[in-house]
Every structure is written in structure tokens, then in C-alpha cells.
């Protein structure tokens, strides 16, 4: 809308005849680039000219409102007659009946209102200009005077202590919201915890979730084992530890192994990699036995387990860190050490 001037917009102009209005606007406002096409000829609706059509539209509106009434009554009936109960089937029936009742109750009102407005209410074209947003000078002056009076009456200029108390209380109040918000982000700001996991020398690899230790001889070629460290459930925060320490163990034909991240980190074709994706930390666990590819379900990063978990596709930047493993005297798989680099996605100070 042109803003070069705003006079003449305050009062509505009756616009029954489009042509004269157009002429007036053009003469009035030279900035208008486009010709105002005005209104087309008014075309009466069938309900305006045929009494039967009018009657029919009214009946339709009544029918739509009736659907809404029936929907509400159906909802109330279903609420008492069809309790959710204990079985899935009864919950399903209850939910369905309540949902349909609610849907018809609201839809009936909405459709009836729109149909009423479209077919029965007057449909003469109207144009209403915007009002100026600025209040009249008198109103503005009165508002300023009222504020000034208030300030004088409260004597805030003279009562310095009062003013200070007011400002202090207002300034301090946001702390009641901010303190819990910041405080509950986490009491622990020690980022270095991300850099190590609970894996350590001679810690046994055990099966998730049962915690059974794994004998190397039990892992057949093509097997996948989801691994947690021994003693995970006894730690102070098992879920925190698990989130960092989960490992995927795969046994390949040793001839298929193209590379490893460290010399002697695997045992007879058994390789163990962190299950936390180096992209944004989803658990990478879709293993394709034939291709040796490990897929992340979130963004399809693909790692080649036979080739040091190198990224072969997707947004991940780094290979999954490899856990160096070996066997103990009894033949159980154990870790040689913790991971040699921080697991999971990048974070500040990751390599510092």
C-alpha cells in the first residue's frame, strides 16, 4: 500500500458503482501503478433468486448442525458405553468412537457455519480501507499527560530508595526462571569425560543386555554381537557409561580384513568397533554380512568393517574408533585398553 499520504483513508467510501470509484482513486493517488479493476458485476446465487434453493440451503445447514449434535451425543455415549478396558481391541474401539464423535461434533459446526455464510448470508461485495494506525493528536496528548501525572503522583523522582527497590526487584526476578534452567542443564560440566570410556585393560567383553562374557571360540564367522563392558550394571550411572562404551563385535574371515586401525587390535578375524556414530552419535548397528558394511540408521553413514570402519558413504567424517581386543587365559574376549581416541561425534576440545 502506498504510504506517501494517508488522508482520505479514515472514512469508508460507499462503492456501489465501481467505475466512479476507480476514477476517484486514480485522480486521488498518482502513485498507484495498477489500475483498480473494481468489482465485477454482482451475480446472484441460486439461493437468492429461488426460494426452494434458499430453503434447501437452510435445511443443509440445519443438517450439518444436527451432525454436530449427534457427534457430541455419540461422544458422550461412547465415553460411558465404551470404556478403554484392558485389551487392545477395546482400547482401539474406545479411541475410535471418541475420535469420530469429536470429529463430527467439530466438523459439523465448522461446515455448517461456512455453508451458512456462503449460501444464506448476504454476499454483496464490500471494500474496507485500512484505518490510520496513528491515534488523534488529542488522544496522544492525553496519554502522555496521564503518564506524567502518574509519575508525579508517585513521586518516583524524589523517592530514590523506592526507585532503587523497584528496579532491583524487577532486575532480580528473572533469576527465578533462569537459575533452574541453567542449573538443570547438568551439574557436570567436565567435558573430558567424553574422552574416555569404562573400557580398560583386561575388561571382559559381555553380551548386551544379559552381561554374559564372550568366548572367542563361540563367535562364528558372520556373527554380530552387541557388547557392553563387564560390570556395566554395577557402575554408578550405567546408562551414561553404556552410552559411551557400547561396542559392536563382528567376526570376519581373516582373509577379508583389508586394514585395521592398529596393529594386533583384532583377534583371529574378530573386530570390535564403537557403536556410536562419528556423525551425530546414533547407534550404528545395521550390519550387512556379505558386504561387511555397517549402516547408521539415522543418516545412512556407511562404514566398512573389513577396512578399519572407514566411511564409504554418508555424512560421517571419521571411522568408528576400534576397540583393541585380545583373549585372556580362559579364552574370553577382553579389551587391551580403552579406545585410543574419543568416541562419537566431534565436540570442542576433542583432540586437546
Amino acid at each position: 500500500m502506498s504510504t506517501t499520504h494517508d488522508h482520505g483513508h479514515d472514512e469508508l467510501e460507499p462503492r456501489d458503482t465501481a467505475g466512479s470509484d476507480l476514477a476517484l482513486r486514480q485522480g486521488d493517488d498518482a502513485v498507484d501503478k495498477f489500475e483498480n479493476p473494481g468489482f465485477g458485476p454482482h451475480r446472484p446465487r441460486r439461493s437468492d433468486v429461488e426460494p426452494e434453493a434458499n430453503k434447501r440451503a437452510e435445511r443443509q445447514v440445519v443438517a450439518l448442525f444436527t451432525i454436530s449434535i449427534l457427534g457430541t451425543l455419540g461422544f458422550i455415549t461412547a465415553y460411558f458405553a465404551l470404556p478403554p478396558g484392558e485389551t487392545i481391541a477395546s482400547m482401539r474401539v474406545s479411541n475410535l468412537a471418541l475420535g469420530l464423535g469429536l470429529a463430527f461434533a467439530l466438523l459439523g459446526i465448522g461446515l455448517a457455519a461456512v455453508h451458512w455464510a456462503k449460501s444464506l448470508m448476504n454476499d454483496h461485495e464490500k471494500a474496507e480501507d485500512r484505518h490510520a494506525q496513528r491515534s488523534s493528536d488529542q488522544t496522544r496528548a492525553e496519554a502522555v499527560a496521564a503518564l506524567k501525572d502518574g509519575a508525579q503522583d508517585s513521586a518516583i523522582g524524589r523517592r530514590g530508595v523506592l526507585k532503587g527497590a523497584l528496579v532491583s526487584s524487577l532486575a532480580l526476578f528473572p533469576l527465578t526462571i533462569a537459575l533452574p534452567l541453567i542449573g538443570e542443564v547438568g551439574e557436570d560440566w567436565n567435558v573430558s569425560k567424553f574422552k574416555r570410556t569404562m573400557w580398560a585393560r583386561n575388561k571382559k567383553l559381555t553380551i548386551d543386555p544379559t552381561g554374559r562374557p564372550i568366548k572367542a571360540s563361540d563367535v562364528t564367522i558372520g556373527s554380530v554381537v552387541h557388547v557392553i563392558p563387564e560390570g556395566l550394571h554395577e557402575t554408578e550411572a550405567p546408562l551414561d557409561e553404556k552410552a559411551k562404551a557400547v561396542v559392536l563385535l563382528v567376526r570376519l574371515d581373516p582373509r577379508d580384513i583389508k586394514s585395521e586401525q592398529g596393529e594386533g587390535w583384532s583377534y583371529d578375524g574378530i573386530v570390535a568397533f564403537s557403536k556410536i556414530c562419528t556423525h551425530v552419535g546414533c547407534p550404528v548397528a545395521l550390519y550387512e554380512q556379505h558386504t561387511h558394511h555397517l549402516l547408521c540408521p539415522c543418516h545412512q553413514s556407511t562404514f566398512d568393517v573389513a577396512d578399519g570402519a572407514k566411511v564409504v558413504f554418508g555424512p560421517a567424517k571419521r571411522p568408528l574408533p576400534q576397540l583393541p581386543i585380545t583373549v585372556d587365559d580362559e579364552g574370553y574376549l577382553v579389551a587391551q585398553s580403552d579406545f585410543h581416541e574419543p568416541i562419537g561425534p566431534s565436540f570442542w576440545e576433542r583432540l586437546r
Partner: protein
Amino acid sequence: MKALAARRHDRRAPAVLLLLALLLTGALYAVLAPTSADAAPAAPSADQVETGEKLFQANCATCHGPDATGTDAVPSLVGVGAAAVDFQVGTGRMPMQMNGPQAQAKPAQFDEEQIAALAAFVASLGPGPAVPSDEQVDPALGDPANGMALFRTNCAMCHNAVGAGGALSQGKFAPNLWETTPAHLYEAMATGPQNMPVFNDATLTPDEKRDIIAYLDLQGEDAPGGIGLGSLGPVSEGLWAWVVGMGLLIAAAVWIGARSS
């Protein structure tokens, strides 16, 4: 075509379009919905090896070789066990119909007796997982709660949290498990068919396998919330919301904005 163009502005056009979209959704679902064949497990028997070998030479040796040792492209069957044969042949995946990203399940080509004979022959080539007994795969004897914990750790990443199946790379997919028989579920875990990894008895004990079967037995039925849409999560729900939900909203907007006749 001209008639079609002329009717584009008909006020019934949105309704017709919506109807077409609904029909298309239904047709797509019917075509794309995963299907699965099933067959009853065979009881192991001793004197079928000879029959099995004849069947093998006639039906399988073309690819797997007369001595079943396979080639570079075809796996050796020595040591895969009777369970692998019962699964692959019983679900119709073998004999393979054509080369593709993975062998598809289809109606089984052999009857139970023939499958048992083939399994007996392959089992005689080397030790491997056996066909499980009825008791080993009875869902009623398993613990579905423990099965759920195990399924979510070991299976859900490919097969979806309730076993509805999911996509893998390059046309491969993890199939829906709802219609798979308990014996075939057990055999798949024990043998790791195609790209599925192996879950041997040390990784998942026979009892744990039965717990998983018990959990899967309870999936794929009515959902308390109404239509499950295949339990495929955002894919089918998104399609539904975009096509049907937005279609209805657009139709309502067009109706509200249109002049009454």
C-alpha cells in the same frame, strides 16, 4: 485432452483429484506392502539323504556345484546345516528365481518331505545348525518381555522396533517378520541368511531365541491407537498426512474460498 483441460476449473475437480490421490495411495500400498511365504518346519529324519541328494543334483547343483562347495559368487553349503536349508527352501528363497539385490521370499517350490530330504542331505555334508523342535520355537513357552529387550538390542535396527521390516542399502531390505513361522524365525537367527548376521547359540541362547519369537508373536496385531499403517513410522504416516491430510485441508480451503453457485 481438451475436454479434460476444460473441466480443470470445474468445482468438483478438487474432490476428483483427492479421490484419485486416495486410490493411488491404496494401489501403491497394495503393490509395495511386504509379503511373506510360509511353510511348516520339517522333522529331522535319518534315511532321506539319498532322496535329498537326488533332489539336490536336479535342482541346486547348477549353482552350488555337484559337491555343494559353491563358487566365488555362490556360497558353499558344507556346514550350513539343516536349519539353513529349511529356511531358504521353506520360505521359497531358494531355488532362487533370478539374480537381484537379495533372494526374495516366494511360495515354496518343494513340499515338506522334499525339504526335509534336502536338509538331511546338506546336513550330512558337515555339521551345522539343526532344524529346531516344536518346543524350541513355541511362542507360548517364551518370555515376550525379555524377548523385547533382546529384539531391540539385536534386531530392531534392521527389522524395525516391532518387526515390520526396513530398508538396507542398494535395494536390499530386512523383511517384515509378522507372517514368518516361528521355526523360520529361529532358523534365520541361527544361520544368518543372506546379509543378516549370525546369532548363534552363544550370542542368543535357544531360550533367548524363543523369547524373541514370543515377542514377535504379539506384534503386527491391532494397535490401540487405530490404524497402524504398517507400523513403518514416519514413512507411511508422512505419506498419509501429506496426501490425505493436506489434500483434505486444500479441498476445504478451496471450498471455503469458492463462490456459492
